[in-house]
C-alpha cells in the first residue's frame, strides 16, 4: 500500500518495479555463479541452479508449512494476551511494575539459544517446548511495547476521560485500547518476524514436523536446494503475514491523517 502512496511505479502482482528488478538481477547472478561453480572450485551442491531450487520447491510438503504457521500464530496470540494483560496490571499497580520490570529486562536479555536449551532440559513435550520458547521471546516484546504506549497516552486525554467518571473497564476500553492500537500493530509486525525466525530454530530441536524439522533434514542430506526452497517458503510466509496485518491496520487506522 505504501508504495502507491509514494507514487512508485507499480508492476504486476502488486510489487513495485524496483523490487522485481532487484530480485531478477539477484537470480541471474545466482544462475551465473551456479554455472561457473565447477571452474571456481566450488562443490556443485553448494550453489544449486535455479531449476533445481524450483524442483525442490515443488517437493515442499504443505503439512509442514501449516504446522509451523499454526505454532507461530497460536504462540503469538498467547503472547499477546499475556503481554497485554500484564501490561495493564503493571500500568494500574506501581508495586507490580517495580517488581516485574527487572525480571522482564532479564528475560529480554537471555539469548534465544539459552531458552531453547532450557526448554529441552525442563519440558518433555516437543510442542510445549516450542510454544514455551516462542512465548518467552515474544511475550515480553508485546508487554514492553503496550506498557510504553499506555504510559505515553497524553495526560490531558486521561484527565479529560477521568473527568467524565468512567469505570476502570470503560477507561481501558474507550481510551487506553484505541490509543495504543497503532503500537499494537507495530508490535505484531515485529513479533511476527521474530516468531518466524525463532520457531525454525526451536523446531530444529526434536520436532519431526514443521519447517525447522525439514530444514534440519535437508542439512543432514547436504541438500542445499532444499534448504533454499524451505527458506524461500519461510520468507514468503513472513511477507504474507505482514501484508495481512498491514491490511487490517490500514482499515482500522483510517482516522489518521
Amino acid at each position, binding site marked *: 500500500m505504501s508504495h502507491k502512496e509514494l507514487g512508485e511505479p507499480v508492476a504486476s502482482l502488486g510489487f513495485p518495479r524496483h523490487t522485481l528488478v532487484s530480485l531478477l538481477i539477484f537470480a541471474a547472478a545466482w544462475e551465473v555463479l551456479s554455472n561457473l561453480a565447477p571452474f571456481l572450485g566450488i562443490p556443485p551442491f553448494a550453489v544449486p541452479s535455479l531449476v533445481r531450487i524450483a524442483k525442490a520447491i515443488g517437493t515442499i510438503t504443505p503439512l509442514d508449512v501449516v504446522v509451523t504457521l499454526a505454532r507461530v500464530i497460536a504462540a503469538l496470540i498467547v503472547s499477546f494476551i499475556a503481554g497485554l494483560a500484564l501490561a495493564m496490571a503493571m500500568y494500574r499497580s506501581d508495586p507490580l511494575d517495580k517488581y516485574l520490570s527487572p525480571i522482564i529486562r532479564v528475560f529480554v536479555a537471555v539469548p534465544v539459544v539459552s531458552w531453547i536449551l532450557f526448554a529441552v532440559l525442563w519440558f518433555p513435550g516437543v510442542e510445549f517446548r516450542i510454544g514455551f520458547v516462542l512465548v518467552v521471546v515474544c511475550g515480553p516484546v508485546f508487554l514492553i511495547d503496550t506498557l510504553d504506549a499506555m504510559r505515553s497516552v497524553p495526560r490531558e486525554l486521561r484527565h479529560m476521560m477521568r473527568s467524565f*467518571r*468512567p469505570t476502570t473497564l470503560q477507561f481501558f476500553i474507550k481510551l487506553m485500547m484505541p*490509543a495504543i*492500537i497503532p503500537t499494537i500493530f507495530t508490535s505484531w509486525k515485529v513479533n511476527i518476524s521474530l516468531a518466524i525466525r525463532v520457531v525454525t530454530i526451536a523446531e530444529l530441536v526434536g520436532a519431526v514436523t514443521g519447517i525447522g524439522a525439514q530444514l534440519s533434514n535437508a542439512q543432514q542430506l547436504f541438500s542445499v536446494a532444499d534448504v533454499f526452497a524451505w527458506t524461500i517458503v519461510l520468507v514468503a510466509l513472513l511477507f504474507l503475514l505482514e501484508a495481512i496485518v498491514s491490511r487490517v491496520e490500514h482499515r482500522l487506522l483510517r482516522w489518521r491523517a
Partner: protein
Amino acid sequence: MTTRSPGGPPPIEVRGVRKVFRQTTTGQSVVAIDRLDLTIAPREVVAIVGQTGCGKSTFFDLMIGLEAPSEGTLRIGDKSPHADFDYFRGKIATVFQQDRLLPWRSALDNAKLPLELIGLSEEEQRERALTWLNRLGLGAFINAYPHELSGGMRQRVAIARAFSVQPDIMLADEAFGHLDEVTAQELRDTFLALARESGSTAILITHQLEEAIGVGDRIIVFGKSAKLLADIHVAQWDKSQYGLLREAIQATLQSNSPDPRLAQS
C-alpha cells in the same frame, strides 16, 4: 433517562478547603489551595480569575472529584464529588483549554463519549449527541475527525460533548483562551446561552477580565493559594462602571490584596 438532579442543580459548598501537593521531583510541599470558603448557588454563572498557578485548576479538580481536599469539605448538595465519585457521573461536565477530543473518534462519536459512560441506549446516545452538535452548528461535520476540523470547530465539539449529558454543573477551564478573539467571543456567547438555557450552574476560569465581567453573575478573584480576594456580584455594578471594575480587579490581582474600590459589592 437523564442524569439531571430532579430539583435542579444542588448548591456547591466549600468549607475550609486546603489542598497540599507534594512535588515528586523536589519533595517540597505546594499549598495549591489554602482554607477556601465559598458557596455557589444553583444556576449561578461564576467567573474565576487569578494569576497563573494560584490554584484555579486544582479547585476544578476538587470539584470534579479527581482530587480529595487535604483538609476541609467540598460538598455538592449533600454529597462529596470525590467520595461519591460514581454518583456524579453525568452530573458534572468540563470543557478544557484544549479541545481534548479523541483523535480516533468522529465529531459524533466524541460527543457521544460521556453518554456511553452513563449507559444510555445506542439510539438515545446518537439522538442526543446529534441534537447538541446541531445546536453548535456542526450538523454538516458529524462524521469529520478532529484533525479535519478547525480549532474553533473542535472546541464546539468539546462543548457539545460536555452539554450532551445535561450536567448539573458545567465547568470551563480557560476554554476560549487559545482561540482568536472573534471565535472566542462567539463561542463564549454560545456557551453561556446554552448554560443558562439548560439551567446548569456554570463556572468559568478565565485570564481575560473582559470575559469575566461579560459573563458572570459573579466574579471570584483568587490570590495566591486560592485566597479569596474578592467576590463581586456584577449586578451591583452599573455598566458605566465596568471600566472602574476592571481596573479594581486588575489592581487586586497585582497587589494580591483586595482593592478598596471593590468594597461596594
